[in-house]
């Protein structure tokens, strides 16, 4: 009886918090910012080369005057809107507005060439919103489990989790493991510029007062995502001109999605599952969903030639990835993609610490974010379907018009942070560094994660050592700190595992 009463009171408490989250999400001006974010996201996503991380990075410093919840909901809405917006350019001009829409070009563009552009856009809108909507519900349902997991973490676990996150990203993003680790460690290293966390020692400031507060991670995000991306965009030739007539039917497109419920659900599950893996964003999930659909429908499919399922699968996977990627971002502070790295920056900038706080005292904010995801997917259907007739105009904007405006906003935004010219200089310097990091295949996300998580990692590292009296054994104690020990094993497995795999396979084959 006592247990039942406790469970009942817990459920009631959860329902109260969800209701409070709902109240926050639909209150004014929060819902207004959600709509603004969604529209902005759709427009930014539709512009080839811009996409969600760039848009979110530019908007991030502008959210300073906003309330923390409104700011985060605005950023999440941009993220969600851009996921759909990316498909507009992918379908109409065969140039994905965001990387996550790359897989949509495979069948979306051929459909548009066959005179079914409106169908393809309506399929993308409906599949994206429908699964985003379902994923938000799943997110709300699984959050009680997350709360228990998150609250089990202490200082040593948080330090190890930061290292695990960076390690995981180095292997999830393709390329050399050593390059990934170097990028992550470089980010951690740069984060130590400024006054020391535990003792007020100015570090690596070389007498420059402007560096005493360190390099702002928001400036780093703007530099790495917005400025570096503009450098890349400047190098590109003119965007492809649309030779597509906006033919077809929106209604038929919407109905097509409901003809393939299995495809929709499968894509949603893949999107959410992959989104939960730190480091693997929507680019991975959309290609996996596409590949799975092409594999399972190999006998009756015409993939690559305009099969509607080739649009449903990637678009049905991209928005649930947003929900999935919020799990590691909000619970442990490990972002799943560039966009969630910016979102993490937003959380920290507004004083919201991912982890126990967001799943404890501030649980209503977390629920408000989840509810806003739910609502923004309803808005995606309404807004998305109504912009279809005008969608092609977005893709015709010359990138040379966008670049100077983004540069102005990046510089002004960086200056807004602390009224510090070093932050503006950091945008420029880190932008150039980011451009070359991409060119030479260093993981930008690992670097950004290092800068964002650096202070958290350093603080928890020293707190752990203070707890243990200076002994490093606190990280390797399987009896008293099993979670810590498991995380160490996880890091080792991630870093050494891929290289041991061939040897293990050889040994197994011999046996």
């Amino acid at each position, binding site marked *: 009886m006592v247990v039942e009463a406790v469970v009942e009171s817990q459920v009631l408490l959860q329902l109260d918090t969800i209701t409070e989250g709902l109240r926050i999400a639909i209150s004014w001006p929060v819902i207004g910012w959600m709509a603004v974010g969604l529209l902005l996201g759709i427009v930014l996503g539709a512009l080839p080369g811009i996409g969600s991380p760039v848009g979110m990075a530019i908007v991030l410093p502008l959210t*300073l*005057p906003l309330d923390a919840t409104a700011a985060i909901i605005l950023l999440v809405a941009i993220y969600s809107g851009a996921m759909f917006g990316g498909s507009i350019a992918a379908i109409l001009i*065969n140039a*994905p507005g965001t990387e996550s829409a*790359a*897989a949509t*070009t*495979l069948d979306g563009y051929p459909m548009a060439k066959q005179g079914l552009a409106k169908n393809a856009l309506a399929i993308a809108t409906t599949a994206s919103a429908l699964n985003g909507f379902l994923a938000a519900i799943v997110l709300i349902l699984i959050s009680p489990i997350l709360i228990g997991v998150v609250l089990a973490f202490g200082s040593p676990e948080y330090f190890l989790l930061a290292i695990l996150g960076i390690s995981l990203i180095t*292997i999830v993003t*393709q*390329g*050399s*493991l*050593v*390059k990934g680790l*170097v990028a992550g*460690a*470089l980010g*951690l*290293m740069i984060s*130590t510029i400024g006054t*020391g966390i*535990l*003792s007020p*020692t100015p*570090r*690596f400031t070389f007498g420059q007062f402007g560096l005493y507060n360190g390099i702002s991670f928001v400036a780093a995000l703007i530099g790495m995502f917005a400025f570096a991306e503009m450098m*890349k965009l*400047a*190098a*590109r*030739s*003119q965007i*492809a001109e649309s030779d597509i007539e906006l033919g077809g039917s929106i209604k038929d497109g919407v109905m097509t999605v409901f003809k393939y419920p299995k495809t929709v659900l499968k894509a949603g599950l893949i999107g959410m599952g992959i989104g939960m893996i730190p480091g*693997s964003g929507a680019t*991975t999930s959309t*290609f*996996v969903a*596409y*590949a799975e659909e*092409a594999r399972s429908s190999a006998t009756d499919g015409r993939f690559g030639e305009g099969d509607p399922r080739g649009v449903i699968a990637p678009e049905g996977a991209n928005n649930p990835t947003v929900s999935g990627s919020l799990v590691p971002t909000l619970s442990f502070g490990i972002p799943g993609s560039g966009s969630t790295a910016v979102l993490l920056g937003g959380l920290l900038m507004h004083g919201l610490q991912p982890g126990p706080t967001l799943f404890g005292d501030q649980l209503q904010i977390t629920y408000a974010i989840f509810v806003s995801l739910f609502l923004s997917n309803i808005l995606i259907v309404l807004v998305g379907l109504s912009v279809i007739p005008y969608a092609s105009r977005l893709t015709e904007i*010359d990138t*040379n*018009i966008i*670049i*100077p*405006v983004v*540069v*102005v906003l990046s*510089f*002004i935004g960086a*200056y807004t942070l602390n009224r510090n*010219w070093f932050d*503006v*200089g950091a945008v*420029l310097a880190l932008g150039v560094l980011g451009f070359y*990091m991409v060119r030479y295949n260093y993981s930008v996300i690992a670097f950004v994660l*290092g800068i964002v998580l650096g202070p958290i990692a350093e603080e928890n590292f020293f707190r752990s050592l203070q707890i243990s009296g200076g002994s490093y054994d606190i990280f390797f104690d399987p009896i008293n700190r099993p979670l810590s020990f498991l995380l160490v094993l996880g890091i080792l497995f991630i870093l050494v595992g*891929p*290289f041991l795999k061939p040897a293990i396979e050889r040994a197994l084959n011999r046996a």
Partner: protein
Amino acid sequence: MLVVLLVLSAVFLIEPIVSNYPDDARVFPQMTAAVVLVGSLLLLVRNYLPGALGTVVNESINITTSDSSAQEQVAQREAEQTGSAPKRTLGREYGYEVNDTVFMVVSSTIYFFAGWAAGFLFVTPLFVLAYTAWFRIRPLLCVALAVLSTVIVYLFIEFLLLPLDQGQILDFSPFLDPIGLVVGVI
């Protein structure tokens, strides 16, 4: 790139010793700098590394199993698109070949220093006009963008009270007083 990484990591390793940082301010940056230094050194000599170590440094890791043929198809289409004609620029019209990215970075750097010296409010329209004119955007659109950008900066000054009208060397802010008066009256 690797040389920059080596120099940076060396500075982060040596500076705490030279400046005698206390332990709690020294250990973490030195640990991370050591990882960057060792990693960069390994990458620098990656072609000469023996056996297993060479494999570890050179091999790409990818644990995600997405459809590589679909990704290749997308990459191929993108490559076809980027192979189109180069942009029209003012420089090319007069026979000067300037890399577009270099132009973007140099003009942004000048914009940054000019903004620092004379205030962003006054240099923003010049930067936007110069940039858009270089890429042969329609003159009317160039002016509209310059005005829009200046209005954005002005709104930051008005609403966030940022001193973007004052440079570190030149201060043109007194010229704004009549405008402020007009805005105030409106």
